[in-house]
């Protein structure tokens, strides 16, 4: 049962929406950054292996 003034609880709804969106968007951005870092590292390592074999 409602404790008090259920119509005045919009702040809780906004907080729930904000936390959900920020967490998912934040994780997606971190994933995108990690993928870019891993790609750059891959390219650097491939280059290193190629140079090592040529030299």
């Amino acid at each position, binding site marked *: *049962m*409602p*404790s*008090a003034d*259920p*119509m005045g*609880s*919009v702040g*809780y*709804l906004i*907080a*729930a*929406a904000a*936390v*959900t969106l920020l*967490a*998912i968007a934040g*994780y*997606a951005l971190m*994933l*995108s950054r*990690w*993928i870019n870092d*891993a*790609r750059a*590292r*891959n390219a650097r*390592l*491939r280059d*290193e*292996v190629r140079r*090592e*074999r040529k*030299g």
Partner: protein
Amino acid sequence: MSNGATARTGLVAATLVTSAVALAMIAFYVPNDRVQGVVQRIFYFHLPIAWIAYLAFFVVLVASIAYLMTRDAKWDTVARASVEIGVLFTTLVLITGSLWGKPIWNTWWSWDARLTTTLVLWFIYVGYIMLRSYTPDRERGARFGAIVGIVGFIDIPIVHFSVQWWRTLHPEPVVARSNPQLPIEMIVTLGISLLAMTLVYVTLMVYRTALERLRDENRELENEAAWDERAYA
């Protein structure tokens, strides 16, 4: 653009559009609950997030069994990716539940059966992530992880049926029953929210597994570079 890249872009676009529609419906379309008022709308976040947590850990269960049967690293990649996303969504279940509990129960937390078993679920899979981080040997880590992924899933039916097995504060199911007690606007909004959250999960899984594959390539290249260094020294 390759076919894979086009498919990924399409998936991201579908996820964003469906999520925007779900948010608009939660904000403007769905009616207020007569008893709980506006705060009941948290349900349209909370329930789809809980569904994704269940789905993510079910995927971990399937991938873990497949890994132990085949020893194919691709199943371990799927399990590892799904655990991380499952933990994110379980964290959100606990937070959104708490944000609903404060105005309705007048407390942020209660050691109620549903809440406690969900917290246990969170600890089990955080434990999985820690176990993987502290086991440098890939094959061993994958084997240990698969066992935790299978045993940990036992908590899911306990979480789900806790509201029926014990007397709890948490509401009983209102949709997953033979005669749902919700008006049609609420059922449609919930359906769109579930679809949006499922697309979010699929999108995150696609990118998280891609990251795991790139990291595997990194490890192979590092080994090759180290081998070459020794060979040409």
